């Protein structure tokens, strides 16, 4: 019966194809690509990425109008740029779109800044925050117009940005001069996207019981079901898994495995052995099997949740004994102490003495100018304002767990908000250890934060990615 249905549908499809006269002449693979071929697929992707990287800088005459403006803006100071923005957008409406709602908070501050230069300046604004990956479709649809609606975007998920936005030329990177100076680089020398900030998702667990999580492999141990946002609804979560297969992070997993005691090793070893041939087929490095084993156990065990908010709400209750999760660190800021809820019910795994292995995952919010931006100078000025001034970053900086990509801004934010002592009360007592944010430098070294690399994610999305999709997720069904 099933075969009949398949045949019928396929026959219909073929008819549609014939009628439309639009069959592709390319040989068609399917996602059932044999695992043995996947290695060469990855090679093909890597080559494509390399090729795009090695592209010679565009000649001036080949640049789009927006790219020309960006190039000019990259040589300007913040104030020069602000004057251009005032000239361009006075009395107009600025449309921005982003994954973070805080863009809406930053925009009025930006307008105030422009008004400090020209008191007669006014600008209306609208900030949209689409859901469910809709931002990519929204930007793609907007890119079809000669002059778009959106002037700029603040967007996450390096993988999709690379493949859906940057490669098709929908979004353009602008590197502010002050940002480049602060990072000891120049706009021409810098490669990659412009990050506004790095956010971290970290392993936490409820400590009201006696469960011990002193190794990142404990989160995938038998019977453990950590809470995590569904990787199909928040794609950056899937990028975390992709990144684990990169050599550096696979090696971290191997190191952590070797630190386990013999009984734990005996449990995980068969899975690692089973993954060796898979890792080879997927073209992964020497420690790839450790990464695949961890990913397999994680996907087959994590308890999918709709957002990090409910995960945090659960972990801090006294009834969530021994429960664990991987969630955005900043969620801890909004917990109110009550009889059944306390921040002291929770521990950040990486902060605990003796903890071994990855402490979490860091991903970025990137800033781009759209290639058909209606207000490109204003977009550049707004981007410069957010990345190069403390006020501009304050919409995000007041929270723990988000680190400005500009080291000077990051230092200023820490001085103002003292996130490293976020768990101290007014009397100077350390009340909530988990809220003392150890900062970006600690997390990316001692904290073993796995960092998103958009190019790497894009290169393995259809190799490791397709392999992950074949795993059976832990669910009710």
């Amino acid at each position, binding site marked *: 019966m099933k075969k009949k249905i398949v045949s019928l549908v*396929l026959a219909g499809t073929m008819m*549609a194809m014939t009628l439309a006269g639009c069959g592709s002449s390319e040989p068609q693979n399917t996602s059932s690509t044999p695992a043995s071929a996947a290695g060469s697929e990855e090679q093909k992707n890597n080559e494509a990425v390399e090729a795009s990287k090695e592209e010679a800088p565009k000649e001036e005459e080949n640049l789009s109008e927006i790219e020309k403006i960006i190039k000019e803006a990259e040589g300007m100071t913040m104030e020069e740029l602000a004057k251009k923005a005032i000239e361009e957008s006075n009395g107009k409406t600025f449309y921005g779109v982003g994954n973070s709602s805080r863009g809406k908070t930053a925009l009025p501050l930006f307008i105030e800044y422009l008004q400090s230069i020209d008191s007669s300046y006014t600008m209306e604004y609208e900030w949209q925050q689409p859901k469910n990956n809709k931002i990519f479709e929204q930007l793609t649809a907007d890119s*079809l117009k000669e002059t778009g609606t959106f002037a700029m975007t603040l967007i996450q998920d390096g993988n999709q940005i690379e493949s859906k936005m940057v490669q098709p030329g929908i979004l353009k990177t602008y590197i502010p001069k002050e940002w480049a100076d602060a990072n000891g680089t120049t706009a021409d020398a810098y490669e990659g996207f412009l990050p506004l900030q790095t956010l971290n998702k970290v392993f936490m667990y409820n400590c009201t019981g006696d469960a011990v999580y002193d190794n990142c492999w404990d989160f995938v141990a038998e019977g453990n*079901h950590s809470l995590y946002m569904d990787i199909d609804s928040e794609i950056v979560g899937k990028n975390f898994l992709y990144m684990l297969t990169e050599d550096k992070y696979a090696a971290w997993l191997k190191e952590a495995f070797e630190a386990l005691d013999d009984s734990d090793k005996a449990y995980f070893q068969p899975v690692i052995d089973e993954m060796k041939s898979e890792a080879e087929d997927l073209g992964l490095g020497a420690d790839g099997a450790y990464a695949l084993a961890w990913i397999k156990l994680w996907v087959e065990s994590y308890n999918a949740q*709709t957002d990090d908010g409910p995960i945090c*709400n*659960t972990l801090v209750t006294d*009834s969530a004994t021994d*429960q664990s999760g991987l969630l955005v660190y900043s969620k801890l800021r909004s917990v109110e102490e009550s009889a*059944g809820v306390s921040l002291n019910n929770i521990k950040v795994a990486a902060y605990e003495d003796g903890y071994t292995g990855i402490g979490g995952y860091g991903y970025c919010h990137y800033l781009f100018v759209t290639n058909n931006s209606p207000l490109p100078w204003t977009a550049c000025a707004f981007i410069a304002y957010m990345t190069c001034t403390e006020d501009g970053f304050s919409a995000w900086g007041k929270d723990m767990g988000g680190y400005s990509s500009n080291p000077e801004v990051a230092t200023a934010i820490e001085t103002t908000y003292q996130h490293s002592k976020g768990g101290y009360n007014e009397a100077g007592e350390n009340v909530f250890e988990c809220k003392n944010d150890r900062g970006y430098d600690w997390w990316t070294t001692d904290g073993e934060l796995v960092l998103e690399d958009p190019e790497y994610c894009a290169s393995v999305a259809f190799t490791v990615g397709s392999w992950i999709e074949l795993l059976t997720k832990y669910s009710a069904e």
Partner: protein
Amino acid sequence: MNSKHMANRVKTYLSKPQNIILLLFGIVLTFTTVAPIVAIVKDTLIIHPGTIDAHLTGKTSGYTVVNYVDLFTSKLAKTNLWKPLWNTLLLAVFTCTISILYGGFFAFLVTRTNLKFKKYLSSIFIFPYIMPQWTLAVVWQNVFNSNAVVGTSNGLLASLFGIEMPKWWCQGLFPSSIVLGLHYAPFAYILIGGIFRNMDANLEEAATILDTPKWKTMFRITLPMIKPAILSTILLVFGSAMGSYPVPHYLGLTTLSTKYISLNSKYTGEASILAIIMMIFGVAILTMNQVSLKSRKNYTTVTGKSGQLSKINLGKVGKYLIAVVMVVLTFFTSIFPIFSFALETFLPNPGDYSFLYTKDVSNLTTKWWITNENITENGMYGQKGILYNETIWHAFAGTLLVAVCCALLAGTIGTLIGYAVAKNRRSKWASYVNGVAFLPYLMPSIAVGAAFFILFSNEKINLFNTYTLLIIAGTIKYIPFASRSALNSMLQLSNEIEEAAIIQNVPWFKRMFRIIVPIQKSSIISGYMLPFMTCLRELSLFLLLCTQGFILSTTLDYFDEMGLYAFSSAINLILIVTILIFNTLVNKLTGASLDDGIGSN
């Protein structure tokens, strides 16, 4: 001569207002129904950069059928297609069954027995339909979840009594079917109850006189008489259940709708195929209904000659006992959720019921309502309190705008179509217009939303996140509410009434406003009220068409997903109060209401 004859024929044809209506809406509705379908079919064949089709073809633009091949034949076919399809069908079937059994049984009790508290029960029974469908799902979680079984914090049962329900009860097909079944049971109640109430008692009485056993009377006489209502319920509920996104999403069931959303980022073209599959079911249901209408035995249910219906006596105790059971049941499906929403807005943290077991009211707070700034970090995730939250009130204004516009447009267009179809009931074109107007309702909302998004996201028209798009989609989707309601009532209206006015040379507008509308006031009002109410809490249709904060349902869903239950609960309360106010207002002004007197006898 021929051309003059033709011109005269056209002139005569167009001299009848009903013909102009049919011609105009036939063309417009063909476009508004077919164009989105064409757009979504095209989307299945387009190569989308950064997705599976681009990867498999090695191209970044052009056309391909690789999405079909991959979806139906890859190793992921079971995960991405067959299992979600199976779950979707099961969900739709169980939802229909539950809604018909529960709604039908309740309709029977209210109309055919001497049950007590009918008026109260009848009003309260339709509450789950008024509320957004996933709110019952959230309530279900808040009551039954437990740390030991589903790994989240303890719900009410586990917190207060240590009762841990099994996983199949907390997540998956079972709770999804129950929640959707309860949500759509009022449909069955209204449709089946309408027939029970107007049913000719002669047949049953004849059976009683002939000493036919009660069960035989039920299966041979009563049930066949309500068969049309059951079929109508199936027609309305099946497609709606198939296209429901939020309920299976919250209760962890993978259906075509949830799969559509999860596939959309990497498998964009394949997701569109899922939308087409859902649409095919809509068309199939409509076709089956048409076939069944043709072959259906003709049961006259409303003769106007029937004597008083014989009421089954439930006994002195029985009429109270069953009423109390129903009061308790409806308490949990209708009143408890409202209490639960209200309570949630006073909890210090989402789902933190510590005041219940500590018996300490200091563990309650009013911060979710009265905080008027979002600078200080006081556990509100950067949001202002409900009373001062611009996002919520802006969305509320947006929702009212969309609901009012959709109700006015869909109500007017639907009524005109109903009128015109009734006047030309034997015309094939009229029957086509009637079908094409009804089709969008049978198509799952998420698929219709997806199709409208694709249709209006191009280089010439880009309507994403505009009220215009929401109003267009809502109007098209809800025209059937008005067209069906108008058609059914207009069919009962004798042509002679209008003909008398035509002889007197009364213009069409005057005929409509002085004769037709006043006579059919009740059904016309419900043709406006149903789109209004449905629009207020519609999510699946609008999910893909706008951002959160644009209308209340997307804002509510956003807060629910974020786990900020105080805000989502407050929005629920706002929605319920709004609907009740409008319902009461319309009821007072026009005498029409949703349950329309079913419980009043």
